[in-house]
């Protein structure tokens, strides 16, 4: 049997052109701004796991909002912040649509959540001292607070609109109307004040001490990062966790990333030493690249049979460095975490430590 070759006849070119233009416009609008804002909507943990987290939640002592989130943050220039911040003090850097902000760990250790608007996006910049995790979330029209509850030693947030519970590392609702929903993540860079200002000298705004609360911001109740001491370096945990993994030391810092059920933890020390780390998890190729200027790492996943990607190839995107257009790589959100906390939430995680 011969195959008939079909050749379409365009009887209405103008309509076709209009339709094509509309379709193209729809495609552009529909493309998620994923290079940074993690559009992976899969919840972390299945129904059973989330129920386990809810059951395991314990009070850390304070009542809801006993650790008050900062709802009306004030900012100052880097030179003004230099009056009270030291060069090696930890800050959490955020870039959204060209707007650059730094949130000092010395302030966030007392508040854990800043409800802010950066680059036109409503964000919650969150920090959990006990798990060493700084994660940004799109908050929409609501604001987030500290519930006072912990799971796996990790901060459980609540949204003030529905009072649903959200463990920070999971970013997934475990109780309330929004149970099972996952928050979109915004990249937050764990770095130091001088490193962040060196890379963004003119445009950086720094969260100021005018938080509206009376706190001694020179004091950290858990220890210090400059230099590291106390809880942050000891092997002790303050609260028990659901799952312990002795492959690494509890407080070893990893850069964790996940995509569609796969979790990967890159050793920050190894990444610093080798410059890049790569692994394949069930057919998905993950790549971590080290940024020496900020002492941080970015994680990418290959979209297809991608070629090599190097740090020098990256360009400035909406949320910071991203692969140039046309390369088969997608940046996925990653954040620093203490190993024990990452493993507690992701018992099946891959650990990558050697180049």
């Amino acid at each position, binding site marked *: 049997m011969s195959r008939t070759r079909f050749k379409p006849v365009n009887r209405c070119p103008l309509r076709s052109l209009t339709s094509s233009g509309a379709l193209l416009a729809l495609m552009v609008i529909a493309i998620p701004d994923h290079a940074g804002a993690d559009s992976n909507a899969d919840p972390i943990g299945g129904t059973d796991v989330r129920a386990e987290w809810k059951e395991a939640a*314990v*009070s*850390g*002592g*304070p*009542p809801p*909002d*006993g*650790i*008050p989130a900062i709802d009306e943050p004030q900012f100052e220039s880097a030179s003004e912040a230099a009056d009270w911040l030291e060069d090696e003090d930890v800050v959490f850097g955020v870039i959204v649509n060209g707007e650059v902000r730094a949130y000092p760990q010395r302030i966030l250790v007392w508040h854990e959540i800043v409800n802010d608007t950066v680059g036109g996006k409503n964000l919650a910049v969150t920090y959990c001292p006990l798990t060493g995790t700084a994660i940004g979330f799109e908050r929409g029209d609501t604001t987030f607070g500290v519930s006072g509850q912990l799971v796996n030693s990790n901060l459980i947030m609540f949204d003030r609109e529905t009072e649903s519970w959200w463990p920070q590392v999971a970013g997934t609702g475990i109780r309330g109307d929004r149970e099972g929903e996952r928050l979109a993540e915004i990249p937050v860079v764990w770095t130091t004040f001088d490193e962040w200002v060196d890379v963004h000298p003119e445009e950086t705004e720094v969260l100021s001490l005018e938080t*509206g*609360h*009376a*706190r*001694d911001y*020179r*004091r950290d*109740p*858990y220890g210090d990062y400059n230099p590291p001491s*106390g*809880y942050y370096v*000891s092997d*002790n*945990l*303050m*609260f*028990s966790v659901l799952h312990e993994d002795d492959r690494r030391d509890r407080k070893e810092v990893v850069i964790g990333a996940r995509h569609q059920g796969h979790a990967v933890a890159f050793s920050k020390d190894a990444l610093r030493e080798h410059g890049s780390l790569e692994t394949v998890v069930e057919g998905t190729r993950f790549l971590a690249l080290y940024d020496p200027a900020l002492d941080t790492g970015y994680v990418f996943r290959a979209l297809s049979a991608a070629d090599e990607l190097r740090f020098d190839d990256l360009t400035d995107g909406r949320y910071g460095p991203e692969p140039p257009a046309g390369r088969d790589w997608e940046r996925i959100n990653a954040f620093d975490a203490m190993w024990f906390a990452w493993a507690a939430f992701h018992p099946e995680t891959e650990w990558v430590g050697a180049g």
Partner: protein
Amino acid sequence: MTRTVGEWRARLRAVLGDRIALALGGLLGVAYLVVYLWVIGDLALHGRGGWMLRTVADPWGTLWSVRGPFYFEAIMVAEIGPATWLVSPLNLALGAFLAGLVALNIAAGTTLARSPKACGFTRGAGALASLPALLAGSACCAPAVALLLGIQMSVALLSLFQWLIPLAVALMVGTLIWTLYQLPGVPQRPMRITPFAASRAPRQPRPGRSSGRSG
């Protein structure tokens, strides 16, 4: 009953009138208040020199905000020379109340110690009772205390911390009452008559009669 109340008042006045006891109790009470504020994190020794006051935007609304068990928000940051003080009127009031109990216990214990009828146990009881009050200062900050002690928090332990202040108050009130009871002149309960006690207790003569047989 009226006389019993009067006796208690007399014992208390005796303590308050004992200048040495009062001075010692007052001194240690003030020291306790300072330590209490330090333990709960309201007082720290790292000011920048000079002085500075910074109040929150809504002092009256913030005043009543709870940060933890028996632990309230500060409404002002005061830097006074080398010290930084997070001023919480409610934390200060609670600390002063505990310090007052400590002071009274120390003072009563001192008065009793100077009394000839005191025994070793009762002399120290007042001071010992104030020790839970120090732990009580950590009730707000149980996780931080656990960190200091290197122990892991559990739900049971966290619940225990919430009861430290009421426990400390109960212990100190109880010890104060017991110490006052031991002071000379407080009515004693009638002694039980046992063969041993009867042979040892001196016979008291009845009014108008001689102590022994004549002749």
